[in-house]
């Protein structure tokens, strides 16, 4: 029998999608071992969140009414207290920016082995986790050589739970040690609200690391002009300062859903794909036939962008 404690996430008044995916991952993990799936909701409008999370497969929801927004110091203490109270076999958290801001501290404090960024979980007399290594080039399975574990799951890998259920909702209180709350969230800011809105474009020509040099950006700019398209990019281009932040597609940038997304020299790291997989048509141009971008592409050209793009420009100029 394995009980699971899954910790949901919210930001600025809304539950994050990963919360509902954690329910699915947790329910799978509990499986038919006869264990219970517990959810923890820490902070925010906990009652409203608990109602939204009253889903099939969830046995109990524990609400911790402590603060409006995520604070890692509060989350660590709350989850540790819940762990002591519930004694679960596995603690599941989101492999998100906030997940990675508290999950490692939870694991360290509770002396639990930690496996991050899980894309597959199996409970087969022990926990077996599938995860990626080497920038998604290699997949691996990792066996947890311990009775208990903390795991963070990659957003988007499990389906969101939707079916309503009737879990018990219980307010959980614990003594928050204020002296250990040593960070304060003072605000939020939207970034990159420049004059170009890539989320509004019908056609995006998007450039990645394969462009190699700043001076080569001009080449894809010309293609975008010829196609009447808007230029966007993957993260490294923005990190290098070659394009402004408001052009960045991906997890930390914008989520786009254009009619055509033409990915040029973009390998298709999971963080990038999270921002563009909803495009109607995806074209990938890349030298590496094994690049993950081809897994989600509708049209593919395996070739050197410096050969293909000039030819393409000629077709349209």
């Amino acid at each position, binding site marked *: 029998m394995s009980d699971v404690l899954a910790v949901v996430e919210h*930001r600025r008044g809304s539950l994050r999608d990963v919360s509902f995916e954690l329910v699915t991952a947790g329910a799978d993990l509990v499986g038919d071992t006869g264990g219970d799936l517990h959810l923890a909701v820490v902070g925010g409008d906990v009652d409203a969140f608990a109602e939204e999370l009253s889903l099939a497969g969830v046995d109990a929801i524990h609400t911790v009414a402590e603060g409006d927004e995520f604070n*890692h110091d509060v989350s660590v203490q709350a989850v540790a207290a819940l762990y002591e109270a519930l004694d679960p076999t596995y603690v599941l958290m989101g492999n*998100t*920016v906030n997940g*990675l*801001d508290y999950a*490692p*501290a939870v*694991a*360290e404090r509770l002396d639990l*082995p*930690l496996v*991050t*960024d899980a894309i597959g979980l199996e409970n087969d007399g022990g926990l077996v986790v599938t*995860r990626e290594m*080497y*920038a*998604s*080039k*290699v*997949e691996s*399975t*990792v*066996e947890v*050589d311990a009775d208990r*574990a903390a795991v963070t799951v990659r957003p988007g890998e499990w389906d969101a739970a939707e079916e309503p259920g009737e879990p018990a909702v219980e307010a959980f209180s614990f003594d928050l040690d204020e002296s250990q709350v*040593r*960070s304060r*969230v*003072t*605000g*939020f*800011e939207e*970034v*990159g609200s420049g004059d170009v809105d890539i989320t509004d474009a019908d*056609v995006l020509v998007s450039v990645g690391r394969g462009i190699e040099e700043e001076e080569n950006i001009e080449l894809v700019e010309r293609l975008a002009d010829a*196609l*009447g398209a808007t230029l966007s990019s993957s*993260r490294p281009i923005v990190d290098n300062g070659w394009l402004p932040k408001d052009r*960045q597609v991906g*997890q*930390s940038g*914008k*989520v786009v859903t254009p*009619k055509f997304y033409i990915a040029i020299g973009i390998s298709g790291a999971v963080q990038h794909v999270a921002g563009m997989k909803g495009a109607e048509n995806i074209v990938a141009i890349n030298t*590496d036939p*094994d690049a*993950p971008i*081809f*897994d989600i*592409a509708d*049209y*593919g*050209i*395996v*070739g*050197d962008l410096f050969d293909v793009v000039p*030819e*393409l420009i000629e077709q*349209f100029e």
Partner: protein
Amino acid sequence: MKILVTVKEVAEVEEDFELDGLRVAERYLDYDLNEWDEYAVEEAVQIAEESDDDVEVVAVTIGPERSEETIRMALAKGVDRAVRVWDDALDGVDLLDVGAKTRLLSAVVEDEDPDLVLTGVQANDDSFGATGVSLASAIGFEWAAVVNALDLDAEGGVANVRRELEGGVEELTEVDLPAVLTIQTGINEPRYASLRGIRQAQSKEIKPLALSDLGLDAAAVESDLVLTDVYEPETESDATYFEGDAGEQAAELATVLREKGVGAQ
């Protein structure tokens, strides 16, 4: 003030590769300093340069002797000295889990007694993305993960940071010092090493430390995680591929684009 920066030599896998048991065959690996660590190093060096006080920047790595060449690149960019943790007990370990890394780095922190620790958000090889925050918890420091702007107020005892959340939103957070901050790419522009820097780096110290030097034994590197399989992910592409030379490929793509009304005007 002393800043400790964790750095790691990571292997990048070539486009075509073969596996050798639970590893990628050595000949397909290119070693370099972890990308995120480049930014952490730059951030530390900039803090040192901009401070009126003496700031010492110390790099710490867990890695075999081979990694010294890579670590020396950090020294060439302004890091004052480095500490390299390695031990026979680490030879042949397939996967060092977050707990083991935390135990090793905690011992180094105890030795060095830094005021600030900077790490990269994650390492590009095993990609746990967890060591910095785990370390903070172990050594009793405050922390912030995925920092893409840092304004250090050492006198006031706080760091004002921005954390890069998903979806183009940044969180503004005040973090009490001492702290561990995990640094995101793009926070600064990492410099290239100057010739002078490279020359100076040759005489900077990289101190090797074995487990016994840190008051630890082999139990410290025992991992709770066992790597049981490594394989190439199945490609699931059902894309229509355009074949031929670049001209032919471009022409076929152009036909599809025009059919769907792109660039038709």
